[in-house]
């Protein structure tokens, strides 16, 4: 009996060796006494759980949690579209997949010294910002004073993005692409939330969002400029699986902003499992997701857009899909950006850069220099079904990863 009790305690604590766990599970299926002992152990540890110091949970967490009950958006029509059928027919798995780190330049490749200084200064400010928005910071408990002092000690990130864009980057050189990736992927949203905090209009949920954005932005910058912080980059380059759950966690129910527009993200039920093998690869994947979001969010008819990560829909790859209800005019504007036709709408040069950044990444990720071929294979692209516009990109899956 004593041994049975010990087994039940160890099983509940998760310290029973695997083989013994299996035997114990078999035992509780047929032995009522073993079942009772296990139930008692569960109750005992539940009691122990309640000795934890009581803490308040923010209201916005409830919103995110109950969102799980909303019906899944039906992607079947999109997944049955001719574009995705083409992708299925043309996509072939990789044995030697790209794991990020391409598209990185040295800071010395930047000829403009003002721009270079801005990048270094932004990076340093973000490094100082990260601990002030982490989960054990004062801001996480609603005391923003320290965080606001830090944010107000330098120019707003919004100004910084505009200053970068004012340099008239054309995006042809790898160095320009790195600057644009740093300025246009996660930075606009980060700038939006940090401005809100500076202006004293923020909630704890905003501080949380800023934490994820800050963390992402730092990784995107390190993967864009290889000598910006080589010490931390060594960590980013280590082999380490990154699960789709990381993306679900930060995007689920999030507010997203891109310059003057902001909207709400709705997520699907992302698959469980790894998506990238190194931080530098994750940073690239992440930047692509931000680019898709930045293209869609300002054009969404109701301010909302949908994110989904799918695996096995197209064998051998993961598929990132974003979609939004969109007016015909906004769709035309988006299509003109992507197809480089006469641009419909003003001030859309930045959107062209966003699409360029995705294309660059597809070239690296699929190890194919031919953009034309990648587009024909529907490796990435856009389409419209009824009033919904879809943007997607495929990324080679990690073989044999669960």
């Amino acid at each position, binding site marked *: 009996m004593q041994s049975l*009790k*010990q087994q039940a*305690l*160890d099983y*509940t*604590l*998760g*310290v029973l060796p695997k083989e013994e766990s299996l035997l114990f599970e078999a035992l*509780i299926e047929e032995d009522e006494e073993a*079942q009772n002992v*296990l*139930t*008692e*152990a*569960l*109750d*005992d*540890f*539940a*009691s*122990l*759980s*309640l*000795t*934890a*110091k*009581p*803490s*308040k*949970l*923010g209201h916005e*967490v*409830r919103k*995110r*949690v*109950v969102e*799980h*009950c909303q019906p899944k958006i039906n992607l079947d029509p999109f997944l049955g579209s001719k574009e995705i059928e083409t992708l299925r027919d043309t996509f072939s798995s990789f044995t030697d997949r790209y794991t990020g780190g391409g598209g990185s330049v040295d800071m010395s490749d930047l000829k403009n010294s003002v721009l270079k200084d801005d990048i270094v200064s932004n990076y340093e400010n973000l490094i100082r910002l990260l601990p002030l928005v*982490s*989960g*054990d*910071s*004062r801001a*996480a*408990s609603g*005391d923003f004073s320290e965080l606001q002092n830090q944010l107000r000690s330098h120019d707003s990130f919004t100004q910084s993005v505009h200053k970068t864009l004012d340099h008239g980057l054309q995006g042809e050189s790898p160095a320009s692409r790195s600057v644009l990736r740093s300025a246009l992927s996660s930075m606009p949203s980060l700038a939006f939330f940090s401005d809100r905090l500076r202006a004293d209009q923020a909630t704890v949920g905003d501080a*949380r969002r800023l*934490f994820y954005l800050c963390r992402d932005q730092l990784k995107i910058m390190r993967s864009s400029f290889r000598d910006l912080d080589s010490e931390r980059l060594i960590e980013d380059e280590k082999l*380490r699986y990154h699960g789709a*759950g990381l993306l679900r*966690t930060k995007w*689920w129910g999030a507010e997203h902003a891109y310059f003057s527009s902001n909207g709400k993200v709705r997520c699907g*039920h992302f698959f469980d499992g790894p998506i990238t093998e190194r931080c530098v690869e994750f940073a690239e994947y992440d930047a692509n997701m931000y680019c898709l979001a930045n293209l869609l969010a300002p054009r969404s008819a109701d301010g909302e857009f949908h994110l989904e990560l799918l695996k096995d829909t197209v064998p051998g790859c993961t598929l990132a899909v974003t979609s939004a209800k969109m007016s015909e005019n906004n769709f035309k504007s988006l299509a003109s950006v992507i197809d480089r036709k006469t641009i419909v709408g003003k001030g859309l040069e930045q959107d062209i850069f966003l699409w360029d950044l995705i294309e660059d990444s597809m070239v690296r990720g699929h190890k194919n220099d031919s953009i034309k071929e990648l587009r024909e294979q529907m490796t990435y692209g856009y389409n419209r079904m009824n009033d919904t516009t879809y943007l997607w990109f495929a990324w080679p899956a990690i073989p044999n990863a669960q």
Partner: protein
Amino acid sequence: MPIIKNEIWYRIKDGDASAFGELYDGFAGAMFSLSLEILGDRWEAEEVIQDVFSYLWRKPESFAPDKGKFSSWLLVITRNRSIDRYRSRKRRLDRGESDDTLAQKPDFNLVDGAEGATQSDERSHLRSAFKDLPEEQRKVLELSYFKGLNHVEISDHLDLSLGTVKSRIRLGIEKLRNSLSNLRI
């Protein structure tokens, strides 16, 4: 313990979104407090809560109502997921900050006076019962349950035999149970 009856699980299993909201309102606080105690990081603890609720909604059959209380299962699953994260964080050493440093941080997570006053008698009783456990039993339970150390690690850490570690866990747990049953008499 906040009252969460198994009946709510049947409703959730049937896809009743209001039951899901009721469960959150009645029990997420206790789950979050536990996760935060283990992780010391509000965002990570929120992620755990989100993950557990998402898992429950997608796979309600993971709980078997004939095998115990729903509330106990929820707390233990929250503990296990929090410990998984804690261990993985320790492995990564992302922060370069020791657990001791974390433990010494000022406490930003205390509930306000009003909420503190409404904590159930049972919870405050449990907390004082835990505090009153002999130091050696409390320490072993803390390391095992809240820090996720296995018996061998505890034995090395405290320089005890494996048998002593196990018996202290067992005795500590039994004392807590007795203390709770005295309260209910």
